[in-house]
């Protein structure tokens, strides 16, 4: 493989970036480190605000070198853009990496891949140890893609890591750059509301994602609009199942091409509505829904294990890690 883009050693970076961010980050100002439902734990307390964070621009496609390294970068991009076809043995739903990481992982405020790479290795409360970037990618497959983690150094992970490394080129290591993760929205004026979210969803989202949240396919059976809940979406352990992550993503990026057009309140309401629906089980499930909530979801940003509209969320979840036999 390749060398880290900036000189300081990986180990040093890991120590410095004790409290961390990830592909999907959100700030938690106070409180002890509890297991997070989201893809990411907390950021350093002295984290700079967005306005004063350094910015950098990922290199352009034409900067991809020729030769085996360039080939691996291009393979990573192909996997990222069309995960369904290019990493299908590890995918258990109808999503693509690029559904939640807009513009093939380049778009600021859409958890851009390069900005995430700059922060790894990193300690994550989600699994309570220092994670390599490949381990972080494994989490994406296990939770967001509702599949199974490719083994470390599997070609899929090496290719994605190469692509991320390429996108990170020129950025400062161990530093949260502008547009990293999803934006952290201020708490809404009114408490986020399921019913208001349902109305806003019908108005702004269902044209593409369907009234039932199942997404839409084209005539050739290929998913065009990703499912937001149900058996073919991300599972309960995914970062997007945390309402704060979803609200930040929605505000910055949805409707596609009209990012920023919804109010913060609408984003919170829609996120609450979306994350109050059944989806594949948390693969970390232990004993019972109540115990699983206690261990992994015990915070206001997760509806797992709570009763919404008479449904105990998590009780009738479709199975996690469903890799289709046809794949």
């Amino acid at each position, binding site marked *: 493989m390749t060398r880290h883009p900036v000189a300081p050693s990986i180990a040093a970076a890991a120590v410095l970036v004790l409290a961390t961010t990830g592909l999907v980050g959100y700030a938690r100002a106070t409180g002890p480190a509890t297991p997070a439902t989201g893809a990411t734990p907390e950021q350093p307390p002295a984290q700079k605000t967005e306005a004063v964070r350094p910015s950098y621009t990922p290199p352009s496609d034409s900067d991809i070198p020729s030769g085996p390294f360039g080939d691996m970068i291009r393979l990573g991009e192909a996997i990222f853009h069309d995960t369904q076809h290019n990493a299908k043995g590890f995918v258990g739903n109808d999503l693509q990496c690029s559904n939640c990481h807009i513009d093939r992982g380049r778009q600021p405020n859409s958890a851009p891949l390069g900005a995430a790479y700059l922060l790894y290795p990193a300690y994550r409360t989600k699994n309570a140890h220092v994670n390599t970037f490949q381990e972080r990618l494994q989490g994406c497959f296990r939770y967001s893609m509702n599949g199974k983690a490719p083994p470390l150094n599997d070609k899929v992970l090496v290719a994605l890591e190469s692509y991320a490394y390429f996108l990170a080129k020129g950025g400062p290591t161990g530093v949260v750059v502008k547009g990293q993760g999803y934006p952290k929205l201020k708490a809404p004026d009114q408490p986020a509301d399921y019913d208001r979210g349902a109305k806003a969803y019908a108005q702004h989202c269902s044209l593409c994602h369907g009234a039932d949240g199942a997404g839409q396919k084209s005539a050739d059976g290929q998913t*065009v609009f990703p499912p937001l809940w149900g058996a073919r979406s991300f599972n309960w352990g995914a970062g997007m199942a945390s309402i704060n992550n979803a609200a930040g993503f929605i505000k910055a990026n949805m*409707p596609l091409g009209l990012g920023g057009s919804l109010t913060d309140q609408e984003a919170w309401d829609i996120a609450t509505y979306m994350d109050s629906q059944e989806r594949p089980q948390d693969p970390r499930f232990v004993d019972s829904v109540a115990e699983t909530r206690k261990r992994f979801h015990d915070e206001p940003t997760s509806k797992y294990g709570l009763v919404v509209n008479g449904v105990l969320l998590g009780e009738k979840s479709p199975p996690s890690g469903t890799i289709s036999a046809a794949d």
Partner: protein
Amino acid sequence: MLLLGMSALPVLAADGKNTTTNAMPPGAASCSPCHGKQGEGQPTTAVPRLAGLNAQYLERQLAGFKDGTRKNRIMMMIASDLSDGEKKALATYYANMATTKAETAPADAAVIAAGAKLAATGDWSKDLPGCAQCHGAAGLGVGADFPRLAGQWAVYIEKALRSWKSGDRKTDPMGVMANIAGKLTDDQIKSVAAYYESLPVAAPAHASETKP
């Protein structure tokens, strides 16, 4: 071979419906002079190919010409005389049609390639999604709201995009196309149009049924 040969003959489906013949509704006589007897449209005059487009989508376009949300002098005149039933019958007729593609001089390969890239990945420096993100990776369209683009005439696609941009066309749900078209440069319009014209047209609906 036998199956292939049979596919050209009328096939009766289990429900008795004829899956290969597509009875021409009376109103179609006023469509075919421009759109062609096979719904193939015209490659040079911005008359779109109708064959194989989604029926509900086609019906809505006729409704749009009637209520003025889609402006076109000739089509507004024709649509104003159509009843709802006639609109539906015509839409269904053309949706079920499949025709081969007439040979036209292909556009410059570099223009098509630029269009293919834009269609696949968009131009996010302008918050512009790729066409494929709504119309599908192969341009086959999704349901009634996101029409098939593959095989459509480039001149028509260019005109459609300019109409979204100018506001002559307002039939798009949530104003999605006004937003998209407003961000496209003339060169980008030309390249995506050339790309989609270069793709195959809709296959006959019964082709898959006769596969061995």
